């Protein structure tokens, strides 16, 4: 058991933390403690019954093998009421105890403390958006240590599920409803490491890549990060916007929009600007049959290409490019004007980035933006 656990824990490369066992990852939240205790108790009960049953089976099979020479023995009992009642009732008693303890801890999991620090979570295909009380947003989840954190979550398209294994917490995000999750972690996440945050409810193509990291910071670091995070976009001068903010924002788009021309859930951004501004690449078509040229331009529905891009970000369903499903969620309320400008600038200067969205020229020394 111990050997095995050490083997497996070594196999899990790069995890600097102690306490991983063969069965469970380290406990990094207050809820994990009881949950694991329960888990181990049930395991022990299972080991007991399983091993007992297997041993009994082996003995029975060996002892009562049919002997060719002797006739059938028919002296076995047909039934034994007390015995049968016993093994009907005993398991019941055991599981009722298990139920009780599980239930007690579950209530705790279901009721976030009043004083908890609340973070708004929006999930959509296929990413997470975390909004903090001061209006800052982030793609990875940053939480302060030493105090209960409450996630109030909603999904803007299909079912998703927020799952943080190290914290032993999980909850579905149901469109049309708010759902809640809380935990408290007391130990700061080691440098260069992050807890996994998975989407555990199947949500389509990007389901398995809809995972983020969770970083637990001590309160002071957290506050520092929070202020920086809330202003990072404003701090960037307009002319540097596209190569500083662009790639970061593109991280939210890369699930569907490639930069190397491969057709994803959505159209690739390679040569996108040329297409929409009527340059080479020809006159693309929309699902409703109309072409870019008939939509974009002075006096048309979209005065300028920028206008079209902007409305496609805020209101994607309005004009869907032919050959693609209307699958893009609206980024209304998630991307302010400056963010949109950054994205548009990113598209305009596509040639200055590689196919992963990395800026090819060297980035001039930036104003202090801590993005961990």
């Amino acid at each position, binding site marked *: 058991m111990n050997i095995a656990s050490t083997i497996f824990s070594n196999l899990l490369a790069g995890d600097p933390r102690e306490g991983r066992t063969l069965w469970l990852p380290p406990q990094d939240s207050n809820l994990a403690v009881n949950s694991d205790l329960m888990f181990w108790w049930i395991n022990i009960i299972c080991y007991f019954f399983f091993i007992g049953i297997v041993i009994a089976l082996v003995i029975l099979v060996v002892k009562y093998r049919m002997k060719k020479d002797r006739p059938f023995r028919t002296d076995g009992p047909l039934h034994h009421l007390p015995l049968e009642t016993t093994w009907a009732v005993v398991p019941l008693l055991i599981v009722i105890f298990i139920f009780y303890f599980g239930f007690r801890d579950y209530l705790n999991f279901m009721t976030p403390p009043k004083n908890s620090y609340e973070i708004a979570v929006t999930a959509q295909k296929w990413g997470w958006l975390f909004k903090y009380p001061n209006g800052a947003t982030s793609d990875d989840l940053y939480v302060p240590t030493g105090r209960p954190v409450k996630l109030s979550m909603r999904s803007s398209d299909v079912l998703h599920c927020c799952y943080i294994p190290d914290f032993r917490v999980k909850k579905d995000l149901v469109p049309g409803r708010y759902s809640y999750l809380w935990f408290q972690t007391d130990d700061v996440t080691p440098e260069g490491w992050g807890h996994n945050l998975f989407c555990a409810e199947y949500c389509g193509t990007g389901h398995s890549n809809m995972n983020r990291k969770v970083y637990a910071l001590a309160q002071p670091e957290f506050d520092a990060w929070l202020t920086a995070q809330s202003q990072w976009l404003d701090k960037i001068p307009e002319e540097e916007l596209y190569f500083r903010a662009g790639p970061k924002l593109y991280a939210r788009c890369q699930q569907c929009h490639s930069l190397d021309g491969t057709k994803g859930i959505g159209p690739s951004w390679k040569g996108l600007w040329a297409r929409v501004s009527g340059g080479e690449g020809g006159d693309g078509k929309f699902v409703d049959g109309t072409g870019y040229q008939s939509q974009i331009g002075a006096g048309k529905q979209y005065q300028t290409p920028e206008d079209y891009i902007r409305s496609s970000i805020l*209101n994607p369903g309005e004009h869907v490019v032919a050959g693609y499903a209307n699958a893009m969620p*609206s980024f209304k309320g998630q991307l302010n004007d400056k963010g949109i400008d950054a994205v548009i600038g990113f598209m305009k200067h596509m040639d200055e980035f590689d196919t992963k969205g990395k800026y090819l020229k060297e980035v001039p020394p930036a104003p202090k933006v801590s993005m961990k």
Partner: protein
Amino acid sequence: MTTLQSQPNHAGDAHGADGAHDGAHGSAEHAKYPFLQHHFDTPHHQFDSAKLGMWLFLATEVLFFGGLFVAYAVLRNRFPEVFSYSSHYLDTIMGGINTCVLILSSLTMALAVRFAQTNRKTGLIICLILTFMGAIGFMVIKYFEYSHKIHDNLVWGTTFYVPPHDAAGELEAKELSVAPTTSITLNPVNPAVFAVPTLAPTPAVDASAIKQASRAPAGMATPTQMAKAEGLPTGEHDPSFAHPATHLVDKKMPANSHVFFAIYYAMTGLHGVHVLAGMVVIAWLLKRAIRGDFSSDYFTPVDVGGLYWHIVDLIWIFLFPLFYLIH
């Protein structure tokens, strides 16, 4: 386990009495009754089995509709105001007439069974025809109801909020692409058709559609109609309800009123399908009755078909108050 031989009155034996086959007796019965299948022993045996089978089938029917009844209960429990409001758009009188029609056809069906049991062929045929007429009558009335609702734009889905009788409305209906007209043409090759944007959010379109509707779009709401719509809807006889999409100019319409019609079409629609199936069954019975298959010995199909027809009636007996009789 006591043995059959030692205890003739054993429960299982008693059961055996009605469900048993013992060779000699069986063969004699088979000679006597041509309709008797080889694995049954007596007509009684066969009849009982058929009855049990049918009742099991009826149980599945109950559960089949049960799902919808549960959905109804959940929705009504969540939007009570919607149900009490929207039900006024339904025509209680028509519904009542339909109920009576179904009950009468049920009665004729029950009588048909009796005539079959008593070897009165003409009576049987007449009753079956009457039942069939009842079914037709029901469907005709339902057709009028449906077409009226659809004309009034009292439909399911987002189209409920889109006035269909002006160009703008038509256009918007297309954009929302949730109108049955656009989605019925299932063209699986083109996934775009399938991506019905229920959740791929199109807020501007959505909200504006509703707004415009409530602003009573061009050519629809004359001041008089607006005035009419001020008051609480008071049922079908109120002329304001005769006008297309009046509900859209009604300031008192609660949110999500379309939900009522969604479940209404779902349940009555499924029931309608069952009525059609019942018509097929009755027609088949009629054919056999005319051919003279049935007698006091053998009327199982009539009886079983009758059971099916009664369950259709039974379900309507509950649908009627649940949709038409909400005050």
